[in-house]
């Protein structure tokens, strides 16, 4: 593999234990628009880069958290490393063996199990709980029928339910109880490793706390290793030993839980922590500066640092002396120019029929820039907008790029713990 590492290299310092699971440059691209009809119509296949070069280790007996917003690729990472979906690149090593090289997945499946988010759709409504719990044992040919029955009863007891309830159907249980059944099913084959994919997101807080405590107990008693996927930062803090933060298909920061929460290094981690409203009476006084904008599409992720389109601290070129809001405003304008999303027509109409290009450009600058710029920059921006009004989009984009291009868009950041150019000099 000669490609440069896309994500941070896993923090291996101070760790001499062998990882149970080791993921390197894992990639899962989904292709769309490549069907027969699309090809007949001349459409081109585009890659949705759900997971794009993710690397981390999960050590024996620990809980690694994978946290991020919807669409960041955390669940796909969990599925790809278990080969529930086939990865399109990278390596996964489980206890010394390459998972991607396995012809027969059965022995791996016995040792690596998964608990899904939705306890309603992940249990077959036509099977009794006993059938649900016995099914993995039957598939893997474990024990005699009598053994399996005993094992099912034992599992129920293990997750805080009663063996008397084995004959019941899933709909007779509450959400929290159903999630316990999901955990029991995952434990049936005595696995070493569990992927917990948002296991408490569908539950109410009081029940979530019960399930979290159950998961901690099981880990302590059975020596389990967890990959805990969640969007809920307070749950992650509670249950994880180490945490990886994902954004748009990449890991942007990975660190021991305490370090990550007490001293976040990546601006995205910091923003994420700041965004969560605290259940505390001092919350109203807490000053929150919400992140601007939305997560970009994984079909066409930003160049360089993927977070740069929302980052509150994009690094300007050394010869540009603008405040962060000014620089941000110019960069937003640049994006509009590059994607040709400025309504020149409307601006011309608004300016009146006898207005010249320069006047229209000045009006556009007023409308699109919400901050005042120093004279030199203001005139450069106005000139570029005059090009836009004259239809010279590329020239406008070029002149703005020459002046304002940031290291955050030209270079993909790397780092041991957090991938951010702000940390490069330090």
């Amino acid at each position, binding site marked *: 593999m000669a490609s440069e590492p896309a994500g941070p290299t896993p923090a291996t310092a101070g760790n001499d234990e062998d990882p149970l699971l080791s993921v390197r440059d894992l990639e899962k691209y989904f292709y769309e628009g490549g069907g027969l009809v699309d090809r007949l119509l001349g459409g081109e296949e585009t890659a949705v880069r759900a997971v794009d070069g993710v690397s981390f280790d999960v050590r024996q007996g620990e809980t690694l958290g994978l946290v991020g*917003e*919807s669409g960041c690729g955390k669940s796909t990472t969990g599925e790809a490393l278990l080969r529930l979906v086939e990865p399109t690149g990278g390596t996964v090593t489980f206890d010394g063996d390459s998972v991607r090289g396995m012809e027969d997945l059965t022995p791996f499946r016995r040792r690596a199990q998964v608990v899904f988010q939705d306890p309603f759709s992940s249990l077959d409504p036509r099977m009794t709980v006993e059938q649900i719990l016995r099914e993995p044992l039957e598939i893997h040919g474990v024990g005699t029928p009598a053994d399996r029955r005993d094992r099912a009863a034992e599992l129920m007891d293990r997750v805080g339910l009663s063996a008397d309830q084995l004959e019941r159907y899933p709909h007779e249980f*509450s959400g*929290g*109880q159903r999630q316990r059944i999901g955990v029991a099913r995952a434990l049936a084959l005595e696995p070493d490793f569990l992927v917990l994919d948002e296991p408490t997101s569908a539950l*109410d*807080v*009081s*029940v*979530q*706390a*019960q399930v*979290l*405590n159950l998961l*901690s107990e099981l880990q302590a008693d059975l020596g389990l290793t967890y990959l805990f996927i969640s*969007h809920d*930062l*307070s*749950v992650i*803090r*509670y249950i994880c030993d180490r945490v990886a933060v994902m954004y748009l298909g990449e890991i942007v920061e990975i660190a021991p*839980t*305490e370090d990550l*929460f007490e001293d976040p290094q990546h601006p995205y981690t910091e*923003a*994420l*922590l*700041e*965004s*969560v*409203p*605290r*259940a*505390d*009476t001092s*919350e*109203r006084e807490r000053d*929150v500066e*919400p*992140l*601007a904008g*939305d*997560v970009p599409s994984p079909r066409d992720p930003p160049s360089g640092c993927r977070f740069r389109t*929302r980052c509150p601290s994009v690094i300007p070129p050394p010869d540009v002396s603008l405040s962060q809001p000014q620089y941000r405003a110019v960069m937003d304008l640049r994006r509009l120019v590059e994607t040709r*999303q400025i*309504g020149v027509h*409307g601006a011309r109409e608004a300016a009146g029929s006898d207005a010249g290009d320069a006047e229209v450009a000045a009006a556009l600058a007023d409308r699109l820039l919400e901050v005042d710029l120093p004279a030199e920059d203001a005139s450069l921006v106005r000139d570029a907008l005059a090009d836009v009004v004259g239809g010279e989009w590329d020239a406008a984009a070029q002149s703005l790029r020459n002046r304002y291009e940031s290291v955050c868009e030209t270079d993909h950041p790397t780092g041991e713990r957090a991938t951010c150019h702000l940390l490069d000099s330090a």
Partner: protein
Amino acid sequence: MADPLLEVRDLTTRFFTEGGQINAVESVDFTVDEGEVFGIVGESGSGKSVTALSLIDLVESPGEVTDGQIRYRNADLAAAVADDHPAAVDGDFVDLLQVPPRIRRSLRGPSFSTIFQDPMSSMNPSLTVGEQIAEAVEVQRRASANPRSTRSRTQGFGLGSFLTGAVIGSREFVSAASHERAVELLEQVGIPDPEDRAEEYPHQFSGGMLQRAMIAQALAGEPDVLIADEPTTALDVTIQAQILDQLADLQAERGMTTLLITHNLGVIARMCDRVGVMYAGEFVERGTLADVFDRPVHPYTQGLIGSVPDLDAAGGRLQPIPGNVPSLRDEEMDDRCYFADRCPKAMEECLEKPPEFGVEGSPDHGVTCYLADHDYDPDAALPEGYFDG
């Protein structure tokens, strides 16, 4: 203290299903003052959304508001209905449960408007965002001109409306002034480039942007009370922070009275002046934010707060509430404190429904639990496993 704008007394909403009667909301009392943000917090099935729907007469069959009063202060409305429905009027207050559905419908928009949880399913996918907001503006405009015509085109997908829509472009329904106002509203809720975005369809908006558009739509009628039912639950945290910020700004600018319903204690803490905690269709505790968060008396409130993992400190073990939310089926409900079966301090007297007690020192703090009246008596504790049989 500001004047109450809404006084809800004894509100009871039941669902008469084939499987039996469900007591979704049971004798709920609360007051919302003008200009404040009142929060209702509770877990799924606690009745918080049904409470909101009851206020705006949107409880669907087999549900029915069976009892209580919804006293809404509006002098104009009081004057308008005084002749036909004298029983409903008390000074400037009107009891909404005693006026006909036609009048209540006309209140949706100018008096009460709602933001729902899921912006994707609350918008009509086949109309542009601008049209839908302009339509809300238009409906209000026509309603104030002619109170009988309050139908909006988004209400029906029938053959009739399809044919009308095919013949007459939707713009015919909406005046240019309404469209302009829609763009203005989109700008006010922080949508960049509102003129262009107004021409786009809901699927072209991200979740956060669409929720902003829904807020714009809710503001179209300049409502007295904004009801926000889990407004950020479907959104990611960074987007949630944007929307909460936006709501707080609008609230501060317009002094808009807001009823915020959520299961998220953090959202409550960020937004609300006063809070009510619901459990099994009832308010178990209510008071100012500090009363409920810093001095909770009801064991359920305490349990709820103890169940949330702390983001700012590496905590010890969580203290979950054991057991599950009770069934709300009438036949399975005794006349006791509904929390007693999960309560760590259940006593013999809890087998009789507790009244609401005040809490000394906090005039606004009410708790439906005997522990607000006297201390826990271990000798009177219910034996372990009392409710298991």
